[in-house]
């Protein structure tokens, strides 16, 4: 029965994702012990987190086989989230001399 075979294939994929997630967790903790400087640490940590997050989203949340409508909505969400974060961050800079947002 094709239905059962489908689900067995999916289950095998899930074990694969689980393994990948465990490995990436070890990697992310491991990398944090190597002192590269903050910028590199941020890039490394966020990249690995993005990969792990994508694996969970695509496979566990079935996002990889989702409908176009969901992709469109999530696309907007990503855009608004990034705008919020980047514009708030950007507003910190180019302040007239000496002024700070945070003290």
């Amino acid at each position, binding site marked *: 029965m094709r239905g059962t075979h489908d689900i*067995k294939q999916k289950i095998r994929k*899930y074990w694969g994702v689980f393994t990948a997630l465990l490995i990436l967790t070890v990697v*992310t903790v491991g990398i*944090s012990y190597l002192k590269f400087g903050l910028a590199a640490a941020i890039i490394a*940590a966020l990249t690995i987190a993005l990969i792990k997050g994508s694996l969970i989203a695509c496979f566990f*949340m079935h996002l990889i086989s989702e409908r176009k409508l969901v992709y469109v909505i999530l696309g907007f969400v990503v855009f608004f989230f990034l705008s919020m974060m980047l514009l*708030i961050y950007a507003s910190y800079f180019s302040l007239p001399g000496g002024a700070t947002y945070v003290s």
Partner: protein
Amino acid sequence: MELMPYIVEERKDTGLYNAKLGIWLFLSSEVMLFGALFSSYVLLRTGAAHWPQGSSILNVPMGAFNTVVLIASSVSMVFAWAALKENKFGKFKFNLGITILLALTFLVVKSFEYGAKFEHHMYPKTNTFLAIYFTLTALHALHVIGGIIVNSYFWGPGSKMWQTDPQRFTNRIEIAGIYWHFVDLVWIFLFPVLYLL
């Protein structure tokens, strides 16, 4: 007689059943909620004169352990749904039970972490790093509790629906699963940002 269409079967043009669209909309708002807190973290840290390294204040092994616990609970959650697709109700119950137990484990470890902080007189009011740490992780923990409640309902009284409307019940588990994976996903970002950077 059911007036409401597309509870189980998918609507042709959107390709979705109602709750599937509903949960993704809900998660969209959650992305903005946690996103706002992450944006606050970024602004507060950028402007701070001193900002401690996460690992100097927080317990990295405990955090890493909790990360593994949540990932495992995500796996067991998706296995619970897959078991229903395979018509194996016992397997479903087993996996959902594991999910709930792992979630409780996460909370127990978290309470030890918080307890240790309070013992050392480290409170949210002590500095902005601790303030944002406690706020982010507490909000996340509230979402974990919510997930435990929903999953326990589906493990217990809610599972009766498997007898009367198995496909609808399977959909419900899929939706609960999507929510639960999101809770895991937030932690996937929280852990490195707070503990490792």
